[in-house]
């Protein structure tokens, strides 16, 4: 019972999807969101299937969301994280994945700090490979849940002005959002310090600005990314304090946004850094709705990729 417009076994990234396929995921997610509001939240779509959360990088929310999504589809779930895995014993990722396949895993959800790891796994695994974030490359379910949220709130994506603010260079969320939003016809502005928002991103059809006022003025959606000083090379910007002063969405700046502009954040948020605490909690903030929608979107992705027969 797969919709005709979907034929992927894996979800490696947004780049591989057509606008129609993106819409298939969003429409399917809408149906699953309704399931989540019922007293009995479980459907039998993936009964008898086994999903492995293979997380080679710490994550709580994405792993939990995938786990719950699979359980609501009646799949069995195994979680593997860095501490529990055999990586400390020197086994390669390929061997680990082949071992999971030998246990007849149907879906492998992979989170890894190295870009391209899901593509690497998909070349030799029979199981569906779902990218839950690969280095600075893609985080496709995050972009899909962001799009779902925007569509739900604004009724459309085409023609909207979407600003993504923060660390673009090292962000997989930014890249997946860029591919998705440009495919669906939004106008994407990228903003942040020049070291983290290089001009090369203009080649992806985005506007690049280092002026926060320009970035927020006409935005229908402002998507804030988490800023971490320690994880990056220390030379990228002077301090968290300077970042907050230059680019943080504080109350004064928030007052200059469009009155119906949505405030989004993939989490976890740093209150007082990229987002003022009050702004995070305001009525235009959809940060927690993103989390709810993420569950529906991940159910849709698991169902579409692993719920039937596929060509690729």
């Amino acid at each position, binding site marked *: 019972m797969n919709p005709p417009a979907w034929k992927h076994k894996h979800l490696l990234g947004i780049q591989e999807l057509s606008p129609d396929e993106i819409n298939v995921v969003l429409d399917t997610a809408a149906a699953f969101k309704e399931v989540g509001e019922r007293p009995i939240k479980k459907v039998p779509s993936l009964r008898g299937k086994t999903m492995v959360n293979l997380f080679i990088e710490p994550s709580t929310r994405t792993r939990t969301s995938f786990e719950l999504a699979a359980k609501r589809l009646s799949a069995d779930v195994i979680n593997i994280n860095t501490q529990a895995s055999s990586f400390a014993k020197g086994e390669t*990722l390929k061997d680990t994945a082949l071992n999971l396949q030998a246990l007849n895993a149907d879906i492998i959800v992979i989170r890894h*700090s190295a*870009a*391209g*790891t899901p593509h690497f796994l998909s070349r030799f695994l029979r199981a569906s490979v779902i990218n839950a974030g690969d*280095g*600075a490359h893609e985080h496709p379910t995050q972009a899909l849940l962001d799009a779902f949220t925007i569509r739900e709130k604004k009724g459309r994506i085409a023609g909207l002005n979407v600003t993504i603010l923060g660390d673009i260079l090292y962000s997989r969320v930014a890249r997946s959002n860029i591919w998705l939003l440009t495919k669906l016809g939004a106008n994407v502005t990228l903003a942040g310090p020049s070291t983290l928002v290089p001009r090369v991103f203009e*080649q992806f059809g985005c506007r690049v600005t280092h002026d926060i006022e320009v970035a927020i003025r006409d935005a229908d959606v402002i998507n804030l990314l988490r800023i971490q000083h320690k994880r990056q*090379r220390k030379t990228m910007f002077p301090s968290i304090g300077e970042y907050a002063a230059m680019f943080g969405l504080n109350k004064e700046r928030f007052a200059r946004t469009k009155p119906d502009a949505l405030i989004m954040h993939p989490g976890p948020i740093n209150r007082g850094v990229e987002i003022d605490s009050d702004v995070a909690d305001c009525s235009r903030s959809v940060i927690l709705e993103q989390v709810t929608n993420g569950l529906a979107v991940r159910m849709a992705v698991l169902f579409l990729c692993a719920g039937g027969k596929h060509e690729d």
Partner: protein
Amino acid sequence: MRIRGGRVIDPANGIDEIRDVFIDAGKIVEAAEGEVIDATGKIVAPGLIDMHVHLREPGRTDKETIETGTRCAARGGFTSVVCMPNTQPPADNAGTIALIRQRSEAAGCVNVFPTGAISKELKGEELAPIGSLKRAGVVAITDDGHCVQNNELMRRAVEYARMFELPVLDHCQDYNLVADGVVNEGYWSAALGLRGWPASGEDVIVARNILLAELTDWHVHCQHVSSARSVELIREAKARGVKISAEACPHHFTLTEECLKTYDTNFKMNPPLRAARDREALLAGLADGTIEIIASDHAPHCAYEKEVEFDLAPFGIIGLETELALSLELVRQKILALPQLIEKFTVHPARLLRLNKGTLGTGADADVTIIDPDAEWTYDITRSASRSRNSPFHGWTLRGKAVTTIVAGTVVWKETTA
């Protein structure tokens, strides 16, 4: 032995004509009896030299050995290879050089010329015993795979090596600028989310080397140049008479960073594949002589080492078997005339390293490569002579190959299917 009827291209002696070549007792002679090799329709060149290969012996004989590496060389038409010192232990001492020479004598089917390290353990901190290395038989010093970051140490290395007439070969990479970069910084690194290795990380060391070559009045050779700006810097310095030179690798002048889009680790090398304009600059540099030498940077790695996440895979590909065919493409594209290409594999590396090679003059060592410039063939990595399989050119249809490789009068490779 008589090699009959081939087009003899011997740039060292200004020869490009149909004639016979005679070999006796391992030397080129005026006339000789014995076996006749018909080279009609073929090119007869001085044995080709690849001045940048990793034979992995001692230490990593699971990747390659002197025996298998030199068999690759013979198949590829190379009668001499220059091996890099980043072995285990590194070739930073006379004993390791002696071992490499001994093993080459015993197991190598082509000539092996070792290089020695610039610094102890390739750490860039203290000078290696360069004089002892020279006595042990190295033809150059280099920390290849590493780059001496300390400019003062590099200056002294070049100044000191001058006393022994040893050129200094440098892998040009500024560690601070490059940091943890794995692919060229630009459109594709941004799109793929891979950390960038900016071309300026190469250029800044090329510029440093030009300044130190001027300061010391001695020869620095920039290995595997990959960026447009580096080519410009070297061109300008050469015009001023600075003792600077450069080599380019077939993968850099054949491929671009766009190949990375599948995250295939066989396209991961150091320096990385760069942008189309860098590739064009390399072609221009090869054409006008700024880049005098072509070398493979043959870098074998085990399959299991390459079959990992992109960030974790080692840099490098094997290249000896595909090098000549990929380079002959430069002739077909009219970037180089055939004799100019042969020069980059013979006279030029021989001159730089003061090797008594690269010529078919009477009395020279009878190292000869017979090339069929148009033979079409498919590179099948499963049939490689290497112990490793890390080539991005597997399955490529190539044109031109060595049909006979002769070292000191002995045929070490002969194409059997021809």
